[in-house]
């Protein structure tokens, strides 16, 4: 029997800077979409509906990184209204591609290169950062975009008052389950060992190396991965760029440590 609306959890799904791929993925759960809307009271979901309400929320799912003053304000407001905040997608979790320039000076230089001296009138641009740079995040659901199964399971568990249950090991585990031949052993730059699983090792299944789009796995051995790739003959700056591509902020400490490196 369907629950009465007042018994349902109030949910908001929000998009900041990103490709909107995560919100799109939620919409793409076509078979489950009716169940999603039945199970929860979706108060705000810009991509799916027009009668959005910005009120008190039980759970807010936030996609994208913060890259303007207006987004920062919006995010702080979401946090104030929501009991639980879930970061969805690599941009919200670790900053994504737009946060690859970790150094403020590098970012300013690049900003100038792209926008020149144009004045920004509607809002002030900020160096792109993951949402936990500004607010407390309760749960992280990484991915680029997030995985359908993982989203549905997380959504479902949160509705039932349980914390999400996600894979906490690296891509290599799923990659072995899929019986792929290790690309690192073929001297290909693969970030599987330092990247969180959940994607089903989809790239390696198609003979493409892992680019790290699920963000760093907890306590990844970045030093060993870096040294291994150096030993295979990859240029030090090239490895760093590859590692920072999706999850710059997630590995900022490591990149900082490397600054005193010898070549």
């Amino acid at each position, binding site marked *: 029997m369907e629950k009465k609306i007042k018994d349902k959890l109030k949910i908001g799904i929000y998009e900041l800077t990103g490709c909107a791929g995560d919100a799109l993925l939620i919409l793409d759960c076509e078979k489950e979409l009716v169940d999603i809307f039945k199970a929860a009271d979706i108060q705000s979901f810009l991509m799916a509906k027009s009668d959005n309400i910005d009120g008190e929320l039980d759970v807010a799912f936030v996609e994208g990184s913060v890259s303007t003053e207006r987004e920062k304000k919006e995010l702080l407001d979401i946090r104030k209204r929501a009991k639980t905040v879930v970061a969805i997608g690599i941009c919200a979790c670790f900053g994504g591609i737009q946060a690859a320039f970790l150094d403020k000076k590098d970012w300013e230089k690049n900003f100038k290169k792209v926008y020149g001296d144009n004045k920004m009138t509607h809002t002030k641009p900020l160096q792109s950062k993951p949402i936990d740079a500004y607010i407390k995040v309760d749960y992280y659901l990484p991915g680029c975009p997030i995985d359908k199964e993982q989203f549905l399971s997380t959504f479902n568990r949160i509705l039932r008052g349980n914390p999400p249950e996600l894979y906490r090991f*690296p891509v290599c585990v799923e990659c072995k*389950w899929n019986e792929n031949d290790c690309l690192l052993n073929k001297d290909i730059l693969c970030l599987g*060992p330092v990247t969180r699983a959940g994607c089903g090792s989809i790239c390696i299944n198609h003979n493409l190396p892992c680019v790290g789009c699920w963000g760093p796995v907890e306590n990844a051995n970045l030093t060993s991965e870096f*040294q291994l790739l150096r030993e295979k003959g990859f240029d030090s700056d090239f490895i760093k760029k590859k590692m920072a591509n999706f999850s710059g902020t997630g590995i900022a400490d490591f990149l900082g440590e490397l600054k005193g490196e010898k070549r």
Partner: protein
Amino acid sequence: MRIIKLKKDNLSPFLEIISVEADLWAPVQKGDKHVFKVVDDFSKVELNTTRTILPPRKIFLPPTFSMFNISEKGYKEDLSHIKKRILFGIHPCDIHGLLILDNLFKQAYLDPYYLEARKNTLILGLSCWPDEYCFAKSTNTHIIEEGFDLFFTDLKDFFLVWIGSSQGDDLIRLKPELFDENLTDKDIQTYINWHTERDKAYKWSINFTVLPDLIELKYMDPLWEKLGNSCLACGSCTNVCPTCNCYNIMDKQFLGGKDGKMIRHWDACTLEEYSEVAGGENFRKKRSDRLKLWYTHKLQAYISKYGKPSCVGCGRCIATCPVDINVRTVGKALLGEEEDAFWVRLNMEVTK
């Protein structure tokens, strides 16, 4: 044990006949490696393989499968992954691997998922020729005397076929005219020559008898820290090991209703989450401690209980670990030989 002869050309017709009522799993090519797969085109079956990427335990306990179906009425065991199967082309070391898993899953709590699958699978072993990674002679798992229904020794022009069980004999009886009961002296000499040459073909060996003591003596050795520094904690050694058997269980509830599943997936003690308990405490937060656990289990603890290592010399960890931490390099390091074999990179001036 009865031993008969099968001409090479008769193998495909034999496999075709026996696979009518069961899925036939055999090694087939994947990239430049091999994997066990259900085959219906028998010309694709590879006879000259070394190790498959994953060990045959994946056939009995898939990397992920459903244990229970849950509904409002309660839960029901889900044994849908179990089918009638014939596993052809499994090498002696991997059969030994299954015998080790039998020990583990038949202890105090019987594991129905493994044991039922095992009961429904016939084992058709195949001889092999070692490559540079194999060391089954060191673990004495290069020969097999039990644990198969049929065993095929490949002698170039023909197979000698050992009949290991009545079920194996039933398979032969499906088409006995494919086989030859009469072995000549020449056939026997061919087998002796093959056996001698094959035993000589192992390119390296390791003394396993001393390793349990060395694990104890070197339990606090800085060697483990070095290993931990280089270990990527990717879990690959564990996933490819034919005797690893740990698993984790996750709930999967369906949206809207009360139905769900309990999913069991392969776990690995080399992964950080493995030793984490409620409240977030972790007994083996360090990679070095987790490696120590894995190697103590394989090379020491299992020996003290069963008198042999929980390593069958298949060489998968050697072929798989991207940073060269495996039974060979760890074994040699424990023995004081080639102490840095596993991590020449640590000495390289690449980062600091």
